[in-house]
């Protein structure tokens, strides 16, 4: 069984290599090949899962050592895999959702002439993500971490002819670099502290290291998680990343990659458990981000950006849960999985809508689509109910547990966190209802297709005729089937996980679990959640359901305007980071030009001048040469004698 673990990674990696190196010859079969290899990886994952279920709880973790990667003196880096319940959960999510999105992309990218390359990148992403969650040490995890960053960059900028996509890709890459630096520093700190960066020794000996060091490592890991999972203050890239094709948004920027930060913190639980200050930082980041993302999601008219804000907010929930320690790890991962289902489903639904509406993304120009796209409406609707936490659906089970856990943290901190999560739930209900109403209900606000010559970049697949109103239609089967499957997950996954605490029992051996000490009973919390849910939905209905929605957005309050601009995140970064950076580079450039270049050019000029003067000594007369020799000999002899005298 251990040998199969390598195959999990190898299958999509092979796909990426073949598709990216294969050239045009593979254009006609490339998407099938890519999808098949993703499916193979999922099947292997399923086999391993079945096998793992058959084992005793204590024997479930598998290890597979492939080879010694960098053996240098006391430094030893191995390529080895570790498949335990936590990794298994991720493997199934990644390969399962990944395969569905591969299938969806066959239809979605049908008219793109670079479809083969797209599938190559998707396979590359799967391989890197699997490597990330299967690695048995932090250095190999880092390889996967960078690999998913690369795949994300390539896919966000997939329509590189659009300047906005190219810029968004660069932005995502650069912001992620900041987080990556955190991870690399964390790994270095681990090596100096523990002498190794393999999971087993680091995590088992974590409590023996000093708290100061663990806090430093924890904060660096948190920085890494912030970058990859789009948490405040490194959140700015996620909204722009929606420039990528919608399947990419669904797979990478909603269901899997952006949750890598949650994985990292959960996996490093032993470090955080022993570093309460770092945990406080984690919950703070989570709480701030869950509100930040939710507020941004309320103001966006672009359906994908609204969903992106929502993703940020939901990951904020997970990070918050992970920061709670053993009370929250399990629920962080549980929410991660259910979120993977419903958010991927929502994005695929959004893609389906855009597909039908000439790639229009402005929800104010949708309206009344439920009659034209029943399947999309149904699946999107189920995803919607799941995310707002409608009783019985997936989101209800997982989010409710996080809110309970937040209160269970105890003390003032518990109250603050609990309040934040409840407020977040209210806002979630508000903005998701808004999306739902704007898109599927109300009157048609459809606009003629824009002139493709005027707007750069039309998503391929759309047969847009300038000046015509869109003709919404249901998407092809390759797109609807994944949506239906995901909708099933959105509905039933949470309930299934909560049956007899199945998910808690499954993960507890890896992450540990603790019930905490909640001042409120579970029923009270649930009741509170229901109240805020109703309030949120009612507010949205009052605003967008009762009266007609203007096609052009009203000016709105100052908060709305700020939220439309992502709460001024880019302005903040511009003033605080970009400007000083520019001044610094400009200053350095000037120093380089005047001082460094001056010194270098001055040295060169003086050597050249010296050369020209010395050259004149070489005048061509043998007598001069002889004098030079004679003088040289005299000096040589004198110097020799002098040396003896000294």
């Amino acid at each position, binding site marked *: 069984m251990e040998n199969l673990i390598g195959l999990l990674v190898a299958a999509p990696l092979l796909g990426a290599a073949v598709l990216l190196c294969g050239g045009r010859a593979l254009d006609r079969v490339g998407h099938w090949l890519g999808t098949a290899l993703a499916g193979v990886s999922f099947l292997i994952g399923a086999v391993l899962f079945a096998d793992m279920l058959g084992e005793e709880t204590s024997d479930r973790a598998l290890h597979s050592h492939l080879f010694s990667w960098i053996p240098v003196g006391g430094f030893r880096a191995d390529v080895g895999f570790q498949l335990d319940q936590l990794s298994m959960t991720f493997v199934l999510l990644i390969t399962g959702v990944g395969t569905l999105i591969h299938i969806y992309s066959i239809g979605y990218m049908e008219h793109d002439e670079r479809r083969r390359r797209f599938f190559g990148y998707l396979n590359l992403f799967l391989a890197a993500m699997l490597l990330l969650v299967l690695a048995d040490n932090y250095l190999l995890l880092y390889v996967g971490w960078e690999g998913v960053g690369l795949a994300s960059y390539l896919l966000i900028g997939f329509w590189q002819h659009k300047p906005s996509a190219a810029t968004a890709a660069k932005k995502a890459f650069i912001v992620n670099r900041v987080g990556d630096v955190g991870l690399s520093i964390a790994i270095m700190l681990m090596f100096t502290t523990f002498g190794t960066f393999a999971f087993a020794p680091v995590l088992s000996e974590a409590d023996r290291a000093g708290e100061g060091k663990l806090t430093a490592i924890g904060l660096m890991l948190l920085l890494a998680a912030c970058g990859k999972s789009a948490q405040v203050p490194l959140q700015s890239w996620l909204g722009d990343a929606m420039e990528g094709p919608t399947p990419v948004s669904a797979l990478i920027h909603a269901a899997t990659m952006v949750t890598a930060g949650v994985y990292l913190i959960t996996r490093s639980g032993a470090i955080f458990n022993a570093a309460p200050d770092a945990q406080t930082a984690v919950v703070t980041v989570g709480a701030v981000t869950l509100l930040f993302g939710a507020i941004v999601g309320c103001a966006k008219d672009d359906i994908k950006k609204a969903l992106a804000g929502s993703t940020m907010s939901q990951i904020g929930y997970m990070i918050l849960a992970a920061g709670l320690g053993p009370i929250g790890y399990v629920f962080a991962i549980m929410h991660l999985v259910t979120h993977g289902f419903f958010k991927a489903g929502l994005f695929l639904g959004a893609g389906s809508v855009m597909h039908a509406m000439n790639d229009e993304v402005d929800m104010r120009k949708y309206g009344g689509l439920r009659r034209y796209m029943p399947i999309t409406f149904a699946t999107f609707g189920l995803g919607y109910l799941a995310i707002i936490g409608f009783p019985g659906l997936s989101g209800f089970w997982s989010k409710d547990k996080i809110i309970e856990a937040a209160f269970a943290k105890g003390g003032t901190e518990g109250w603050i966190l609990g309040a934040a999560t409840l407020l977040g739930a209210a806002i979630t209900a508000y903005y998701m209802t808004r999306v739902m109403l704007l898109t599927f209900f109300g009157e048609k606000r459809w606009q003629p297709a824009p002139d493709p010559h005027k707007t750069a970049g039309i998503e391929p697949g759309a047969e847009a005729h300038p000046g015509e109103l869109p003709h919404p239609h249901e998407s092809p089967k390759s797109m609807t089937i994944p949506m239906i499957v995901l909708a099933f997950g959105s509905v039933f996954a949470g309930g299934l996980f909560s049956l007899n605490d199945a998910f808690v029992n499954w993960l507890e051996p890896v992450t540990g679990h603790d019930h905490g000490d909640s001042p409120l009973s579970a029923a009270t919390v649930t009741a509170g959640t229901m109240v805020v849910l109703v309030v949120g939905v009612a507010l949205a209905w009052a605003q967008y359901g009762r009266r007609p929605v203007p096609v052009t957005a009203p000016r709105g309050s100052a908060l709305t305007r700020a939220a439309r601009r992502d709460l001024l995140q880019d302005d903040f970064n511009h003033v605080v980071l970009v400007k000083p950076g520019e001044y610094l580079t400009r200053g350095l450039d000037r120093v380089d030009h005047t001082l460094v270049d001056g010194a270098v050019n001055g040295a060169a000029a003086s050597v050249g001048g010296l*050369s020209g003067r010395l050259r004149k000594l070489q005048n061509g007369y*043998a007598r001069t040469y002889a004098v030079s020799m004679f003088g*040289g000999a005299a000096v040589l002899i004198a*110097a*020799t004698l002098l040396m003896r005298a000294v």
Partner: protein
Amino acid sequence: MSSAPSVHSLWMTAAGPRDKIPTPHIEYGQLSPVLIVVGAAVLGILVEAFLPRRQRYAAQLFVSVVSLAAAFAAVIALAAGDYGTSKAHVAAMGAIAVDGPALFLQGTILLVSLVAVFTFAERRLDPQTHGNRVDSFAAQPAAVPGGEAEEAAVRAGFTSTEVFPLLLFAVAGMLVFPAANDLLTLFVALEVFSLPLYILCALARRHRLLSQESAVKYFLLGAFSSAFLLFGIALLYGYAGTVTYSGIADVVDGQVSRVDPALAQTMGNDALLLIGGAMVLVGLLFKVGAVPFHMWTPDVYQGAPTPVTGFMAAATKVAAFGALLRLLYVVLPGLRWDWRPVLWGVAILTMLGGAVVAITQTDVKRLLAYSSIAHAGFILAGVIATNKDGVSSVLFYLAAYSFVTLGAFAVVTLVRDAGGEATQLSKWAGLGRRSPLVAAVFAVFLLAFAGIPLTSGFAGKFAVFKAAAEGGAGPLVVVGVIASAVAAFFYIRVIVLMFFNEPKADGPTVAVPSALTTSAIGIGVAVTLVLGVAPQYFLDLASQAGVFVR
């Protein structure tokens, strides 16, 4: 003068008046590399004397190639017979050492000379005159340049096949030079290889006046330096009462208590030792082209026929550094604290002087001349190391450098215009666009000169600097690296000139050489890359050969 057994030598025995003259004992087998080459040189003279003019070229080429190859085989056989290591000793009654450094350097000189013979024999480059194929050498060297006799000789299609025996004589002298184990043998070897070189320098077919001028300068200054050397030898004899290296070393070390009565006034006088040693050093530093004894180098390199320049630059440097190493490591190790600071100064001047003055050169051959001066400085840094690594790194450097030099000058012979070789640097502009292959090959040699990794130049420079640093000459290494940086400027400037400048309308053309020059250049490139990419085997070889017999 008495011939005490401890200080007798080949020369003393011959001069000993009172004793019965014993038959010198000569180990012919161990001296066979030298003997083969000398014999072939004599045979070459006979070929000139007795064969018809038309057949001489082929015969001379055959004799030269076969003899050099045979001599090389003899060196290999001696090395295989452990003469380089365990059986190393001094042959010919103390006159010639057969040991690791000697065999390594002799092997290098023979290979370099073999390749040089190829460039000497090239007859495709110059356009045919009156239907005769001609080489780089004057038709009738004795004729007045531009006179009627010369005109007649050119029309008759004469060629100077004497260059081959001259080359062989020079090679013979060079083989003895680094192996010489007494000062008189050293001097004789010096003259044996210098005199043919003076003549060879004067034999250029084009620019004959320049060529003759260079030969006269070389001869005058060479004679001057020989005088220093000879006077130094006399002083050393006065100090030690002997001319053998080991004998002098014994006196320096204070192991000889018996004073020769005839030399009672002088023996053991340190002033004689220091002045004599310094003067011998001057003679050798002249040959390696170290500042301030370098001034002949650019003029002679420029004026001499390019194949001769290549041979001289490569082989002379090997032989002269070999002799210098032996002198310093065998005769004068006891004086290390006296000669090291002096050589420090010389090395610094040589590295910086060569590199700095090269920057403003406008002629390829002069540029390479200054480059060779700078390289002499780098090699001196290795010599100064005075440890075993110093010897082996210098041996490696010499082997690497000589092939690069030979190849570079061979490329220079290819770039021609109506006046013969176009050595003006400005004419090389854009050469890479017209003849990418030739320009690329020259670029490889330039990169090797500059010491860029993956070329032999890097491996050699690294070895030398490492040895110097370990030998306590760290500041010298710093100066060496600075000089290398300065030198890299003009090497790379030539590459830029060849590849990134527009070709000139009246630029030179690249002649298509015969297999001879092609193989010479090919061997140069191959050795440069092999020693650059996989130097370890050769470094080990040099390391094994790094012990002098005494």
